[in-house]
């Protein structure tokens, strides 16, 4: 996983609440057995006017000119501004894989769905929850100013606007540590191998039926 310490990026506004994982990456693209290559199909149903399926040459597909990510002014955006309950729906990690593959590093919204929140951090995407009023202000600023960029500093937990306003955000210490250092969860957990073995043994003694196989 790559580390993220600071990030400066162009902001794209996605003005709808409850953006679900089916919208982020429709299920016909879940059939891949790989982790990469989902970017071209991010928001497939919104981005293209035809029906998408795996293995297409996306360059030949008709783009939906009304969709925000297709507008010239948002090309190269790496910060996504969203509305409440972003990422609801399934547990598919393909959603953050697609967002990451497309080039998003930071998503700002009033709230995020639980599983998506976890999955995004594990894939090096920083999710920043800001209150509704602040997010609304950002939407207005992004739409009013072409080339609107935000500066994100994970260490300091701040987002700085072009006007110089500094917005503070919360992030839990563990996720912050992992993202700052690009750490792999499994390696970290296996540092506690002895504690796990010990727990497992006690657990097996107390509740042996949890370890039973079909007989």
């Amino acid at each position: 996983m790559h580390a993220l310490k600071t990030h400066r990026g162009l902001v794209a506004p996605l003005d709808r609440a409850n953006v679900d994982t089916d919208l982020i990456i429709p299920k016909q693209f879940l059939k891949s057995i790989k982790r990469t290559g989902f970017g071209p199909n991010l928001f497939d149903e919104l981005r293209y006017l035809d029906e998408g399926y795996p293995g297409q040459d996306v360059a030949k597909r008709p783009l939906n000119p009304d969709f925000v990510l297709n507008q010239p002014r948002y090309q190269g955006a790496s910060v996504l501004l969203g509305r409440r309950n972003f990422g609801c729906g399934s547990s598919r990690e393909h959603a953050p894989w697609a967002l990451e593959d497309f080039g998003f590093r930071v998503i700002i919204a009033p709230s995020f769905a639980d599983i998506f929140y976890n999955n995004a951090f594990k894939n090096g995407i920083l999710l920043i929850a800001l209150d509704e009023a602040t997010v609304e202000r950002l939407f207005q600023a992004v739409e009013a100013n072409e080339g609107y960029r935000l500066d994100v500093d994970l260490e300091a937990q701040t987002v700085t606007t072009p006007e110089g306003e500094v917005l503070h955000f919360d992030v839990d210490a563990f996720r912050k540590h992992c993202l700052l250092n690009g750490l792999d969860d499994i390696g970290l957990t296996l540092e506690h191998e002895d504690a796990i073995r010990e727990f497992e043994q006690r657990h097996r003694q107390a509740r042996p039926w949890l370890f039973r196989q079909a007989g």
Partner: protein
Amino acid sequence: MAGQTLYDKLWSQHLVKQRDDGSALIYIDRHLLHEVTSPQAFEGLRLAKRKPWRLDANLATPDHNVPTTLLERAEGNAGIKDPVSLIQVQTLDDNCQSFGIEEFRINDARQGIVHVVGPEQGATLPGMTVVCGDSHTATHGAFAALAHGIGTSEVEHVLATQCLLAQKMKNLRVRVEGRLGVGVTAKDIVLAVIGRIGTAGGTGYAIEFAGSAIRELSMEGRMTICNMAIEAGARVGLVGVDDTTIDYLRERPYAPAADLWDAAVADWRALVSDDDAVFDKEVVFDAAEIAPQVTWGTSPEMVAPVTGSVPDPDAEADETVQGGIRRALAYMGLAPQQKIADIRLDKVFIGSCTNSRIEDLREAAKVARGGRIADSIKLAMVVPGSGLVKRQAEAEGLDRVFIEAGFEWREPGCSMCLAMNADKLEPGEHCASTSNRNFEGRQGYGGRTHLVSPAMAAAAALAGHFVDVREFHAQPQEA
């Protein structure tokens, strides 16, 4: 000191290590796998040269991509026409074989939707932690198991360490008291709950479903409710242990037997919230007031009683809500204030991990018996949740009831719940579906999903539009 909630008990029984930052390492007793979210996890294990921590905690079955017609299934994996789907199923087979994980393959009678299979086998037990790379893992909470969906990175983490990094949730109790009306089911309860608290109402909480109406439900009904906890934003849904739980588990293949059974039962009896447990939040429903529910929009919270109508966006104060309703109505091809009973249907799907268990099929068959699907219905299908459910239904003659009424009787799998196999909606088609998600495109590009109970779906199939199943029941039916 105040008592503990059921969730608190399960959490503390599995706590391996508490970290200073509030996150914790919890031990996982059961890990269920399917073909869609596991390949990248196995790939990760291989790349890092890691081995699964405890093989016997894992159980796998393909479900999302499997075809559901008898003809295709007769060929086993070779019957999967879509090459990409085939690769996923084969990859699961190969991974399970090479790592030594038990798998119910495509034509094993025990194959089925992973959330139907686990409980049916007794592989889901009270007091377990159960995870799966699938958000509807919440289903297993009906057994007082701490169960939730995880992402693929976490699938790999659980395989490698038998643990999960987790954060303790808050406690929300949803109490449903009183008696349900005739023809009103568990599905209607959970849709009504989501309609009231919203799709983010449970975010950050473990929801315990309690109250006399929940006690009255069968395990199947409780699973339906916990299944959709995630649709209310909660990763975890729970129901405390009682006789219904214990009776269901007796003599299941993976359940304990003999002396171990008695010890287990004694332990399970404690898996209820203490009387003096404190919940962070509580919501109460009167079961008698719940009517059969139908979703009209593109989010499960966009739901109305069958006697009601589609909302009018102009009547909403909040602009985001207004916009959401407008967008949903445009997508669904519905007009503001249109009566729910006037929504005409093209297809009907009875199945999915929400409603494909034997009791669901019995309820639908009760309505379908002696009837005939409306001429306007292009396809009505019944997809049992597992090979064993199918066998049981056939032993009871339910397959005949459905077939005689014009339904297609299919082989087990996720099928048109998410349309990863060939079963899907065409653009613009309206479908009465017993599944759990009505998101845009969920059942096929441009498809329009209305979530309902199995009885409501069967009634809609016969009428060609939504009807109040309570009145349907009241009409004398031919034998």
